[in-house]
């Protein structure tokens, strides 16, 4: 699993890590019993404070997504993402898009229309290829 974070993203870094783990579960790059990188490893790779990684792992454990096995590391427990989690993920994406639309003076309907049109176009492109 590859985890990346962006310092310019408005989300705190530990939330970004949590979202990255959830994303990996949804797209299927990790499954049950998969080991997350160690705190030391991930902090070093991303050049972030080890406490930030610990915080993300602790929150994920609290949500029941991973479990910390003493002396061994952090492992995924809940591999299959349920419909509610997919909906939550979709909602996050929608909120980000809405905020961007608002900034550009567009309302919800205009955004939905544009999304449908763009989606169709994407589909055509894929089927042509």
């Amino acid at each position, binding site marked *: 699993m590859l985890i990346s*974070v962006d*310092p*310019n993203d*408005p989300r*705190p*870094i530990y939330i970004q890590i949590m979202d990255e783990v959830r994303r990996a579960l949804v797209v299927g790059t990790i499954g049950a019993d998969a080991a997350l990188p160690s*705190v*030391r490893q991930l*902090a*070093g790779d*991303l*050049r*972030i*404070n*080890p*406490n*930030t990684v610990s915080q993300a792992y602790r929150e994920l454990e609290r949500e029941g997504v991973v479990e910390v096995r003493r002396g061994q590391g952090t492992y995924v427990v809940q591999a299959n993402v349920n419909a509610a989690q997919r909906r939550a993920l979709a909602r996050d994406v929608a909120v980000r898009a809405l*905020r961007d639309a*608002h*900034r550009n*003076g567009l309302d919800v309907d205009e955004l939905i229309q544009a999304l449908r049109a763009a989606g169709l176009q994407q589909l055509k492109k894929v089927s042509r290829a």
Partner: protein
Amino acid sequence: MSVLPTAMIGTEFTVATHDLSKHYKYVPALRKVALQVPTGAVYLLVGPNGAGKSTTIKILLDLLRPTSGSVEVLGMDPHRHPALVRANVGYVPEQLNWGYGWMRVGRLLEHHARYFPSWDWEYAKHLSRAFQLRPDQRMSTLSKGQGRRVHIALALAHRPPVLILDEPTDGLDPVMRDDMLGVLIDHLAQTPTTVLLCTHHVTEFEQIADHIGVLRNNELCAQMPLHQLKQGLRRYRAEVPTGWGGKAMFGAAVLRRTTAPNEVDWTVWGEQDDVAHQFASSGAFVRDSATISLHDATLALLNPRETVTT
């Protein structure tokens, strides 16, 4: 005076100053500074040259006496327990001229090891390898970057509970800087440490630091956890009616303002909902409220300003 928080509550502080003032002759260097570095924090102390950063550090290490006020490191007064405090602090000074030019790197490490009972030779060797230090080189022949890395190795190798780093990336090229960050992070992952870090390069340490203190005009004008700064200091873009009179409503909470006839772009400190509400009740329409980078936040804190465009 300041609308920004300058005190933290409910935390233990490993490094703290109380009403700390220092005057050189009649020139003030520090005015009633109450620094609070929580245990285990990576604390960024920022401020322009001459704001008092290095003076603060020197007082913490008993290299300077304050004019008034007191300081505490690990619960001790450095002036009463100078040896004990220095044994527990890893210090990387901004100026690297320590008068050891004739010493070879390896000899300096041995020399240093004797002062610190907790010196870890295995770790010192690991750091020397990571920093590509050559034990046979004389200190006086080292480049600025090499000298900096020797001092970082000296500071880390005894695994002190407190690290005080004054411009630790000064003189390092981008690759060395990145390596140094990697070494520091690895150190923090293994050794519980409280870090006080003075720097002009906030962006480099943005993802490592968790607290910030800002010295301006020899006073601490802001001090808080970084996430609080990121949450509370935001950039608002709003559309305003012609002749809008909202400016008076916000007062000192606005740190930077760019104003066009029907649009404003302001950097405002405050609870997001409160600020948005204030804008709305003044007849403005907030189009966008966004977090800003630590770089921009620091600039806004150090140098508030107003720009009017047409």
